């Protein structure tokens, strides 16, 4: 007995731990949303390219597009263009689209559209980059100015990271004569970046330009320049204006390197405008969409991998254990008497089709009529099977009549009685009448009320959409429930009703 208890405890522990671990893994590692209402931002980015095509000349336009290896996941990507051939190639961690046409003339407009979201990115690839480079050639006064700037930077920095931010800070101090010389009167960001690049190159610190787009709705924007450097482990991003380190969450890297966004042959005045807008989307639907576009195929092996039709069935089925748990608690802890063990769960399932208020009325009316018919048949001294058949037929006729009347009265509810509730009704009537015969009317009434209470309670719990979603998405919760049920199997305490039943003992 003691060994068995230990065995049971270990089993319960294992099940509960496993259930919690799987659920926690799903929530915290895979990032599956806990409620259905949780939404995610969905970004729609349109890049519109306009240019004048030279007449009688082939056109070739190349534009960088986001490399899609970041924390964002693309859900959809489209290249909208008339009469242009489209090809995409990758180089140096960038992606470039090439639009080409043999003949084009006048104003040309091309669109690139990207839909992306932040969630459900797959494993990040290991970042690699250069950690050493040669100095850029620099001569005369500029060389002296650069070296004059570098020595305090060296003094004030400890490593690559602090070195770069110190360099950026110095370059942004326009009152410094050396800086002014190097900038040559042009304090545009691009120029500052050039100077920073120069300074860093003398110190053999590699640096790369990063062009980013900010995820912000309805604001006209041009790509923002950032600098990044590889410290041997990961990329460090710097704002060339402020020296601020770290790329904000809302920046999307569009391309890296020194080249311009667009290069055009056979045309002039290329212009790119970015339009961004965000929409919200149900997180789990989003996850399903994402799933098709990434290698994060965890949903493949969840219940969401099933066909939609089957999913709906499972959403009902997976709630049955909840109903069973309710019955278990009501019976073993509460001491409520119900008709059979799981009949209440079946009735609760039938309530799904009839809705609860109408379901209770329907059940009460039909069961009462069925019972009175049965007691009438009792007088005829029929055998059990023929009597059951008569009751079943009667129930069918009764339901048909109720449906007909409610339809005529304009109550569509009455039509909701289908096959399943009918079978359960018949079964309930038969079992109730047996109880009536065995234990008397009072007991039968008590049991019927108990059954209705249990059925209503399980129905209400089984129909909480949040709960359905949660259990359907995290089926491992069922393991925790099994653990609880196992523990209940050894519960020795009193049932609530027993406290009243044995009250006589306390009356001394």
């Amino acid at each position, binding site marked *: *007995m003691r060994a068995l208890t230990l065995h049971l405890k270990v089993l319960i522990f294992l099940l509960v731990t496993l259930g919690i671990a799987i659920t926690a893994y799903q929530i915290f590692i895979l990032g599956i949303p806990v409620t259905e209402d949780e939404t995610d931002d969905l970004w729609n980015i349109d890049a519109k390219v306009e240019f004048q095509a030279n007449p009688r000349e082939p056109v070739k336009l190349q534009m960088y597009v986001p490399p899609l290896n970041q924390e964002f996941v693309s859900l959809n990507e489209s290249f909208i263009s008339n009469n242009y051939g489209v090809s995409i190639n990758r180089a140096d961690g960038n992606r470039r689209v090439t639009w080409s046409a043999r003949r084009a003339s006048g104003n040309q407009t091309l669109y690139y559209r990207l839909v992306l979201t932040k969630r459900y990115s797959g494993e990040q690839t290991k970042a690699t980059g250069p950690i050493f480079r040669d100095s850029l050639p620099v001569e005369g006064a500029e060389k002296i100015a650069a070296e004059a700037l570098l020595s305090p930077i060296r003094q004030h920095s400890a490593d690559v990271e602090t070195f770069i931010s110190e360099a950026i800070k110095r370059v942004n101090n326009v009152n410094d004569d050396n800086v002014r010389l190097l900038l040559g009167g042009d304090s545009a960001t691009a120029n500052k970046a050039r100077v920073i690049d120069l300074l860093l190159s003398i110190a053999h610190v590699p640096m790369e330009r990063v062009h980013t787009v900010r995820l912000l709705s309805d604001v006209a924007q041009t790509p923002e320049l950032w600098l990044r450097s590889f410290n041997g482990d990961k990329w460090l991003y710097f704002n060339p204006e402020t020296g601020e380190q770290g790329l904000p969450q809302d920046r999307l890297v569009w391309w890296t390197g020194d080249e311009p966004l667009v290069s055009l042959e056979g045309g002039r005045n290329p212009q790119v405008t970015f339009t961004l807008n965000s929409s919200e989307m149900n997180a789990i639907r989003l996850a399903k969409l994402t799933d098709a576009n990434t290698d994060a195929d965890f949903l493949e092996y969840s219940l969401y991998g099933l066909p939609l039709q089957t999913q709906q069935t499972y959403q009902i089925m997976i709630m049955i254990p909840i109903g069973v748990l309710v019955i278990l608690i009501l019976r*073993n802890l509460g*001491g409520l008497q119900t008709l059979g063990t799981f009949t209440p769960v079946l009735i609760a399932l039938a309530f799904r089709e009839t809705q609860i208020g109408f379901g209770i009325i329907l059940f009460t009316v039909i069961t009462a009529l069925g019972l009175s018919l049965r007691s009438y048949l009792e007088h005829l*001294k029929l*055998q*059990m*099977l023929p009597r059951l058949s008569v009751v079943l037929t009667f129930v069918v006729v009764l339901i048909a009549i109720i449906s007909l009347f409610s339809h005529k009265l304009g109550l569509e509810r009455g039509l909701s009685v289908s096959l399943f509730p009918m079978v359960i009704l018949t079964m309930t009537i038969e079992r109730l009448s*047996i109880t009536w*015969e*065995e*234990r*008397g009317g009072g*007991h039968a009434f008590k049991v019927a009320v108990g059954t209705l209470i249990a059925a209503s309670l399980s129905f209400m719990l089984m129909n909480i959409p949040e709960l359905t979603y949660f259990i359907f998405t995290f089926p491992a919760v069922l393991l925790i429930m099994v653990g609880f049920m196992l523990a209940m*199997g*050894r*519960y*020795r*305490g*009193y*049932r*609530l009703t*027993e*406290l009243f*039943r*044995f*009250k*006589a*003992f*306390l*009356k001394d």
Partner: protein
Amino acid sequence: MFGLIKTWKALEAKGIMGINRRNADYVLKYNKRNLYPIVDDKIITKERAIAAGIDVPEMYGVIETEKDIEKLKDIVKDHADFVVKPAQGAGGDGILVIADRFEGRYRTVSGKIITHDEIEHQISNILTGLYSLGGHRDRALIEYRVTPDPIFKSISYEGVPDIRIIVLMGYPVMAMLRLPTRQSGGKANLHQGAIGVGVDLATGITLRGTWLNNKITKHPDTTNAVDGVQLPNWDGFMTLAAGCYELCGLGYIGVDMVLDEEKGPLILELNARPGLNIQIANDCGLTHRAHAVETRLEELKAKGIKETPEERVKFAQELFGHVPPHA
């Protein structure tokens, strides 16, 4: 809420056994599932008891199929009174007690006259499993009608009073006399309204009783006091009950017995899930007594001794008997 916790604590202190404890610690632990048919099927119980030399009401016949129902006339032709029972019935349902014949018809104990066809219909119901646990096909048993000893006349209303003894591993732990009332329709089942009266294990003298979960001292129909009645042949009952452990192999049973006017103590049936109201009848919890028996069993097991039914009765009577009468 606070009151409930207090009730809980008080009940626990008194050692009152609840359904969950009974199921987990006794029924599931001591009653092997495969032995249930022995007690669930009264025909098997009877056959076992006859083989073991234990007294049971005489079996007149068994009806197994609809075709067999024809044989009813033959089976009962020599007996003016008899009882029809479902072999696997529960809680006394489906039992028909015929007390006499009346102009080709039958008279039940309650005085109702019924026809032969009605008895056949009842048997047919029994065969289709209307009264059996789980609705399985069943057999009907026709047997000797017990005539209760007149000792019970003053404290009983119709029907046959019976004696229920809870036996744990062959040790009687608690006993109760069950008296039919007008409300129970002559049946001796407590949930149908019969009275349970506690019995002192050592002396066989009745204590106070329980009726519908309340404590009582008088029979509601006869208004005679139920306590202080000396049951005859008490040690016979106790030994009979203790011997039922060897008969069926189940460790936790309720043994139902009757006292027949002519044949003395007879075993009626065994119950693998005996009810808990016996505790109210005896004003005493089962848990402490059960623990005492379990301790005794462990001691004996350590010494390698096995006790006979008589020794077990003696142990139980010394430990649980001689309840001081109520003031």
